[in-house]
C-alpha cells in the first residue's frame, strides 16, 4: 500500500510539473495587442497547440481610394486580394519554445504583401518584441506591442 502511495505521489508531482509545461506558459500570449504604430489591434488566440493573431480593429477601416472596407489588395495571391483586412490572420503558426519566446511562426505585412519569419519575445506580461526577419534574425526589424484590455 505504501509503495502504491509513493508511486502515486511521484505521478502526482510529475503531472503537476507537466501541467505547467511551456505550452501553458505560452498562453500568456493570448490576448489583444497594439503594435507601436497604433494602426491596428491584434487578437492572439491559441488553436491546437499553436498561436495565431488576427486583426480585430483598424484605425482607418475604410480605404480612402475605394471608400469600401480595406481588403488585402497587396497580397501576391490574386485570389486573396479581396479578403477583408479585418479578421485577417497575420500572425501564424507560433509555438511556445520557453524562455518567453514564441518561434516557428510568420508575420504578414498587408502594407506590402510580404510574409516574414518572426520571433515573439515577451519582455514583460504586457509588452512584446515582435521581430520580423528574412532568413537570419539579424536581417530584420523589431516592433514593440502592448497588451490591451477590453473595457467592460
Amino acid at each position: 500500500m505504501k509503495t502504491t502511495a509513493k508511486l502515486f505521489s511521484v505521478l502526482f508531482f510529475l503531472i503537476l510539473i507537466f501541467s505547467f509545461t511551456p505550452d501553458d506558459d505560452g498562453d500568456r500570449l493570448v490576448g489583444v495587442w497594439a503594435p507601436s504604430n497604433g494602426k491596428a489591434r491584434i487578437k492572439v488566440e491559441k488553436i491546437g497547440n499553436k498561436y495565431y493573431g488576427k486583426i480585430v480593429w483598424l484605425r482607418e477601416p475604410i480605404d480612402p481610394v475605394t471608400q469600401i472596407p480595406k481588403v488585402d489588395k497587396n497580397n501576391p495571391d490574386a485570389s486573396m486580394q479581396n479578403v477583408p483586412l479585418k479578421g485577417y490572420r497575420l500572425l501564424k503558426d507560433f509555438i511556445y519554445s520557453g524562455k518567453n519566446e514564441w518561434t516557428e511562426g510568420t508575420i504578414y505585412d498587408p502594407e506590402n504583401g510580404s510574409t516574414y519569419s518572426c520571433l515573439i519575445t515577451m519582455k514583460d506580461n504586457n509588452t512584446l518584441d515582435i521581430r520580423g526577419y528574412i532568413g537570419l534574425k539579424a536581417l530584420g526589424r523589431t516592433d514593440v506591442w502592448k497588451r490591451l484590455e477590453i473595457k467592460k
Partner: protein
Amino acid sequence: MKRFTLLLFLFVGNQLFSQTDSTKKVEEEEDYSIYENVTSTDGQNKTFCNPKIFDLSPSRFISIAWDQQMPYDMELSQLFSYPKDSTNIVPYEKANANSTSGLRLFANIPVISSNKFLWQLGLNYWNMKYVFSEKITPTLDTSLIQQLQKNGLTTMGLHSTVYKPLNDKQFILMQVSADLSGNYTFSNIQPLKFTRYSASILWGKRPNDRKQWAIGLSRTYRVGELNFLPIILYNWTAPNRKWGTEILFPARVHVRKNFNARSLVMAGYELEGQSYRIGGIPLSVDKELEIRRGELRLRLEYQRQIWGFIWGTIQVGYRHNYSFNADYTQIGGSDFFRGFVGKQEYAMINKLGGAPYFNVGIHLVSP
C-alpha cells in the same frame, strides 16, 4: 487513493478541455465592436515615426550589380600644365574608351533595428575597368590613360546609418562613410591615409504615411571633390498610391510610378562621384595626383520582385561627365576644400564625352 485519482483526473481533464475550447473559439463569429473600447494595461505604447513611407522603392540589405558605359572620347591635359579653364586645354592624352564597366557590391546590415532606433553598418565595393581603343597617345606607361587601362578605378568603403525617431512625427538621420578610392588592386591596396570621409545629418518630419521630408547638411565627394552642401529629402506618395517622389537633393531626384507592391519604375538623376588617388605616375616628392570624378546620371530604372525578398533592377540612362579633373594633394593624404568658388588650380583639366549606360542588379531587400 481516491484523492490521487481525483487530482489526476482534474489535471489531465484540464489539459484536454482547455485545448478543445481554444480550437472552438476560432470558429465562432467574432463581434469586432468589442475591440473599439480598449485600455492599455501598461500605459500608452509610444509611437515613433517609421523610417519608410508607403510604396517607397525597397531598401537593400545586399546588392550585386553590373554597370557598363558605352564608348566615349577622353581628352586629358598635360600634367604640370595648370590650364586655367577647360575651354583652352590642349589635349595631351587622347583616347576612345570602348567601354567602362565594373562590378558594384553593396551590403547594409542592421546592427540595431527597432521602432525607436535603427543603426545599420555596411560596406561597398565598386570597380571600373577602362577598355580603350588602340589609338592611345602618348604611349608612355606613366600616362594617366595607361594607368586607367592597367588597373581601372576601385572604391571600397564602410558606411554607417543611424535613424533616430524623436516622436511620432520627427526624426534625425545621420550617415557617415569612409572610402578608399584609387587605381589600386587587391594585391596592392593603397595606404589608408588616402581614405576620404563623407557625412550627412538631417532633421525631418513624417506628417503621415505618404510623406516625409528633411533638411540637413552634407560633407560629400559626390561632385568629385570635397564639398559641403545643404541637402533636402522629400519622399512622397500620391493618395492613389500610384505615383510618388524619392528625392535627396542634390544627390538624387526621382519620380516613381508604382505598378503594384512588387514592381515600379523610377525616372530621374543621380550625382555620382568620388576622389581617386592615382599611383604609378611620377610626381614631385611631396605631391599625389587625385582624380575628382563627378558625373550626372540621367536614368530610368525598373525594379521588380523576382522571388520573395529577391528583387531585380534594370537601369538605362545617359552619363554626363561633370568632372574628371585632377588635383595635386599633399603626400600625407590630407585633402583640401575648393567648393564652387575656390581659386586653387587643377593639376589637370580633363574632358570626357557623355555616354549611354546600363546597370543590372539583383538585391536582397529589407522588410
